[in-house]
């Protein structure tokens, strides 16, 4: 008897028998025993007088942790939680940086929007925690090296028989007595199971497994390195960065003159920049140009705005030729004519427009500063000033 006894096992045929046998085993005072059935038999917990499982507490703990962690995490990441403590000045490692952006008009802390993720994380952690605890803690698995494995007994209970097993660890264990007890209960194929001399190498502790782990680690590491440093920079993933497009200053292979950005066709006019036809021809302008702008209050207001910006400095607010510059620089020959002279009153709109555009004497042209349409608005305003200076009775109506 050099072999060490692990347990004595017996097989039963019906669930009723096994329930009965389990009850008797408890009555006989055995503590370290087990019942093996191919499926959970109702009422067995009671027959074996097992205490209830504590598993739900694990679930609850995991769930509460998941819930509060998800809430905290979303609050931290989406919000600006530390700003109130002057944390802005703190140096935070990149993985502690927050992302406080208002998105979709929602407040930084949007509880309703956080609920779905909170829920999912709660469920995820509860489920994984429960299963991990069930397998590893409550059942002590994996246990491929258990002595019962690879016995005929195990083959029977994994299929259609019901087995009772009283272990040698039990204080009352006595091989002969236990065998007798089993036979009394109607057990068949009563067998003593021995611990192997050398436990068969447990899969998870074996060198093979260790080697496999190392292999997987090296494999995953290599794969990750190659993917993130080589594959992701290969043409397949970068084609969006290198499409067949041309940039403005590049040399063109396509056009004969080598320019990527081709010049516009001769005579092209930019929108809104019609060339001025009466350059150096004030009389022509006065004769042929017609004011295209309507005399609406908007146009006049705009004209007034521009006049006040560009013209008042010399011509004065009311066009009397007494602008700030003229007053300050008096005696330097700066003498803009009044806009109310009869000469100007007789000028056509086109003639005034020409002066604004081209300038006259000391006055520079304002074509660069004021757009064509706007110059016409200024003309309207000048007319309005002229009329206001000599308002007639009829204007008041």
């Amino acid at each position, binding site marked *: 008897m050099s072999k060490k006894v692990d347990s004595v096992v017996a097989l039963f045929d019906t*669930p*009723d028998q096994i329930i009965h046998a389990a009850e008797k085993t408890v009555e006989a005072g055995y503590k370290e025993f087990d019942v*093996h*059935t*191919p*499926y*959970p*038999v*109702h*009422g*067995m*917990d*009671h*027959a074996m007088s*097992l205490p209830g*499982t504590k*598993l*739900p507490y694990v*679930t609850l703990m995991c769930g509460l942790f998941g819930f509060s962690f998800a809430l905290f995490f979303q609050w931290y*990441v*989406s919000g600006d939680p530390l700003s109130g403590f002057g944390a802005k000045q703190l140096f935070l490692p*990149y*993985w502690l*940086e927050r*992302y406080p*952006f208002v*998105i*979709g008009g929602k407040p930084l802390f949007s509880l309703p*929007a956080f609920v*779905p*993720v909170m*829920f*999912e*994380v709660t*469920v*995820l952690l*509860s*489920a*994984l925690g*429960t*299963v991990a605890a*069930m*397998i590893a803690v*409550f*059942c002590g*698995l994996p246990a*491929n*090296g258990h002595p*019962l*494995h690879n016995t005929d007994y195990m*083959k029977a209970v*994994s*299929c*259609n028989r019901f*087995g009772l097993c009283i272990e040698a660890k039990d204080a009352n264990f006595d091989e002969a007595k236990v065998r007798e007890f089993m036979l009394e209960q109607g057990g068949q194929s009563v067998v003593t199971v021995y611990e192997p001399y050398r436990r068969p190498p447990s*899969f998870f502790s074996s060198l093979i497994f260790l080697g496999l782990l190392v292999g997987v680690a090296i494999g995953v590491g290599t794969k990750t390195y190659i993917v993130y440093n080589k*594959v992701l920079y290969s043409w*397949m*993933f970068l084609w*969006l960065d290198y499409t067949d497009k041309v940039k403005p200053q590049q040399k063109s292979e396509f056009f004969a003159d080598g320019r990527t950005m081709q010049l516009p066709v001769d005579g092209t006019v930019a929108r809104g920049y019609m060339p001025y036809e009466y350059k150096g021809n004030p009389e022509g302008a006065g004769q042929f140009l017609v004011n295209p702008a309507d005399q609406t209050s908007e146009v006049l207001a705009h004209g007034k705005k521009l006049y006040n910006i560009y013209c008042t400095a010399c011509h004065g607010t009311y066009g009397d030729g007494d602008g700030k510059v003229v007053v300050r620089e008096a005696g330097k020959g700066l003498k803009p004519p009044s806009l109310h002279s009869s000469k100007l009153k007789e000028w056509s709109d086109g003639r005034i427009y020409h002066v604004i555009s081209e300038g006259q004497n000391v006055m520079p042209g304002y074509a660069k500063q004021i757009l064509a349409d706007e110059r016409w608005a200024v003309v309207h305003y000048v007319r309005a000033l002229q009329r206001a200076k000599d308002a007639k009775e009829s204007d008041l109506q």
Partner: protein
Amino acid sequence: MSLDFSRPRPLIEGPHTLKEIDDVIAAPMERPHHREFFIALAISLTGLGIFVISVAKLMADGTGVWGNNNPVNWGWPIVNFVFWVGIGHAGTLISAILFLMRQPWRNGIARFAEAMTIFAVITALLFPLLHTGRPWLAHYLLPYPNERALWVNFRSPLLWDVFAVSTYFTVSLTFWYVGLIPDFASMRDRTTTRLKKFIYTLFSLGWRFSNRHWQHYERAYLILAGLCTPLVLSVHSIVSFDFAVSIIPGWHTTIFPPYFVAGAIFSGFAMVITVLIVVRVIYKIEHIVTMLHMERMAKVLMATGLMVGYAYGMEFFIAWYSGVEAEQYVFINRAFGPYAWAYWTMIICNVIIPQIFWSKAARNSIPILFVVSITTNIGMWFERFVITVTSLHRDYIPGSWAYFTPTIWDVGLYIGSFGFFFTGLILFTRFMPVVSMAELKAVADGAQPSHHGGDHE
């Protein structure tokens, strides 16, 4: 009336010993490869090939190969995503909700439906990943500390989706695996070849059917079922949030969450029926997956179909009742606009055809079940199409109104996704027990003690 209400109908037809149950279920894994298997695999691999080609084309040329346009920015990829996630729902419903409701008939079909869930969710996940255009950067979707100091936007429903679908996948996989542990152990003790023994040993974790373990195991299973039930509701609800939190008329409506869930169960059950009709014949398990199962699934199909019909009606009524013109327009346009064909296909397939199940004879007829389950899935695909496309194709600016036409690559990806799904499912039926042995044995005749030992009175 020959019906007897006094006892539930037996779940397994004919007397079966526990050993026979094992033999029948393990048979597909033990007999040599047979012709049907290779034919089925060849068909599904062809589909998978189409999928691979379509993805390759997509990678090479970008998402422009699809028919998506402006304003229909969400085309078939999202339709397919919602479709496949929906298919995945029946599995968890059968395994979790029916488990909690103590409907033991679920035991015959739960394992298979769960496997369907797993593969359907994987298939579904591919579509949004491909739609991002750069699936290799998918990890940007996860909140992890990164060198760009960027976090994901937790206020976006699309991010909730990332959490919901990946949680759903993980938990379903866990649930499925927990159910498989005792069966792997049974297979470990049955099998004769070394390689199989090694693999089954690895996955069975050394399970030894101890009642000290069963106690924790059963409670863990119950808890998982309890967790899966709200989870399954939440997943499609969150998918529906993708649409419903926006202000697009036709998308923004409060009934969307339960309506999507009902639709998901509807299409999922239809898919379970379609596939089980074939599988039960090929693997000769007609006495385990009986007509009782088929009939009950037909009832669920009709019930969920009516729920979906309720939602259609409610949406129409409230669109009128709301007095919001844009809302009213969308629904009129759905029914009578350019996509009326899709809308009426949906109504006929989802609401009208399942009404045939009011007849008991129809519920017990395999050909009718098969046809209706397929039309249901057609209808449910069109439902997602109608929701996505008809709401988008009439933009706020009439100038950008457009008609959406899929390209060959849309079609290829869609057909290919079936190949992807079925390849996984066929391999599953070959290498894992299609029906849970332990659960089925527990509900077999005489499997439980004649009067329970415990007394709670």
